[in-house]
């Protein structure tokens, strides 16, 4: 393998990794706030992808409109799922919530088969063309994906760390009761977390479609699992952890594929997860703080 090929694969890895990271962020933020592994999160992306497909392929809407539609519908769907399925279970055991999330995932996947059909929908690439950096050929899709993801992550960092709503989110994640005693509304803060996570999934769906140009009812499940692994690898509940986890898995997959083991790339992902968790059960950046008495 030549050096330029390696670089090309790395860029590929960063591109896929960006999508994993965006999706992993939603997983991690929701877990952080209500300790739920939201297995329906991946399916939000699937719905977002269909929105882009129908907007462009069936209604010939401009891509910008399609993108806004995908993000809008994803956000709305995420918040609706939270309000309808999760809010009533807020004081129920975590296991009931987890099972509900799996149920919602099935519902969305089977609902999608019913509404959109069970077959794969293919569309023309959203972005075409590429540019040569030295001897490395980089697609515009990869550049856009990586740049957009980085911008989104900086924005998210700003929202979470610098705004009143973001600080309230961190307060609720740490101690729901104490947060309420500050006058923070749980309903509002939790819904906002779902809205942000689902909007990120919507953006992820657009970027995914830009790379693979195909939508299918079950596309969300593997993507969701990879993003989940990314979130756990980075330290579930940690926002920078989700980003690092996403990029790590994307690059890992690309390198395994580049080494000629494409068939093994999923296995490699899980192997790395197991190894990391053996040595650091909380993932790269997950931590537990002890209260002082």
């Amino acid at each position, binding site marked *: 393998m030549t050096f330029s090929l390696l670089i090309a694969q790395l860029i590929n890895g960063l591109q896929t990794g960006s999508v994993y990271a965006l999706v992993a962020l939603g997983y991690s933020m929701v877990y952080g706030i209500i300790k739920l592994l939201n297995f329906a999160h991946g399916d939000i992306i699937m719905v977002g992808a269909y929105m882009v497909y129908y907007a462009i392929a069936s209604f010939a809407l401009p891509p910008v409109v399609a993108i806004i539609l995908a993000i809008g519908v994803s956000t709305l769907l995420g918040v609706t799922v939270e309000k309808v399925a999760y809010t009533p279970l807020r004081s129920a055991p975590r296991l009931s919530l987890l099972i509900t999330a799996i149920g919602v995932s099935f519902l969305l996947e089977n609902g999608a088969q019913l509404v959109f059909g069970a077959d794969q929908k293919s569309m023309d690439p959203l972005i075409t063309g590429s540019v040569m950096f030295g001897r490395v050929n980089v697609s515009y899709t990869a550049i856009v994906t990586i740049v957009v993801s980085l911008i989104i992550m900086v924005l998210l960092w700003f929202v979470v760390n610098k705004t*009143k709503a973001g*600080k*309230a989110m*961190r*307060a609720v994640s*740490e*101690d729901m*009761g*104490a*947060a*309420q*005693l*500050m*006058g*923070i*509304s*749980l309903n509002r803060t939790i819904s906002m977390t779902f809205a942000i996570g689902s909007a990120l999934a919507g953006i992820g769906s657009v970027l995914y479609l830009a790379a693979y140009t195909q939508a299918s009812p079950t596309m969300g499940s593997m993507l969701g699992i990879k993003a989940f692994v990314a979130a756990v690898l980075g330290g579930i509940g940690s926002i920078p952890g989700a980003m690092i986890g996403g990029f790590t898995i994307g690059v890992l997959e690309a390198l395994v594929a580049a080494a000629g083991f494409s068939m093994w790339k999923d296995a490699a992902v899980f192997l790395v997860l197991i190894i990391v968790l053996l040595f650091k059960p909380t993932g790269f950046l997950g931590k537990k*703080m*002890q*209260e*002082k*008495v």
Partner: protein
Amino acid sequence: MSRILDVNEINVFYGAIHAIKDISFYVDEGEIVTLIGANGAGKSTTLNTISGLLRSKTGDIKFLDSSIAKTSPNKIVSQGLVMVPEGRRIFLGLTVEENLEMGAYTRPKSEIRSSMEQVYELFPRLKERRTQIGGTLSGGEQQMLAMGRALMAKPKLMMLDEPSMGLAPLLVDLIFEIIADLHKAGSTILLVEQNAQAALSIADRAYVLETGKIVKTGRGSDLISDPDIKKAYLGA
């Protein structure tokens, strides 16, 4: 003096455990009232019920003449009833300054700065540590932060759940001094304590709680010399 808090015949359960049995008491504006009692008497349960984190099966809780028995905890805070919970529960992952900002969550942005300066004046140690995250503070500093955070809400009634818990004697004195100062400055305080001696000596009135019931009430200065109280709570 006008009534600020009126708790009327509340009963609180944890599943089958009947933790609070027909408790009634009140707090008037400008008073320090203390609830004392042994471990498990139901002091925290009472405060948590007033703040809306727990619910009473019966009776009513009135704050400033309107019922808060069914009001959500965050709305109770916006009405001016603020609690410093047991074990402080500051946000360990947020900086000192962010903790204080969260305390002022219900207040207009324009007033936050000046309140923060007031808190820093009261607790200069917090000012020195304002960019440090809560988890790195000592126990005493965490208690100061928890109290400062509550003051950021400009409470009309502040409830403190065992503010002296786990602190060295010198710090206990400091915390009680600050409570007495706040009282002198006009604050109304409902204080829960196991340190009966210290609590009774600063309180206007006191209620003694035993296994979920109020068994005695009176002026702080009277209870401190009450033989039963001396025997049970003052170790004399």
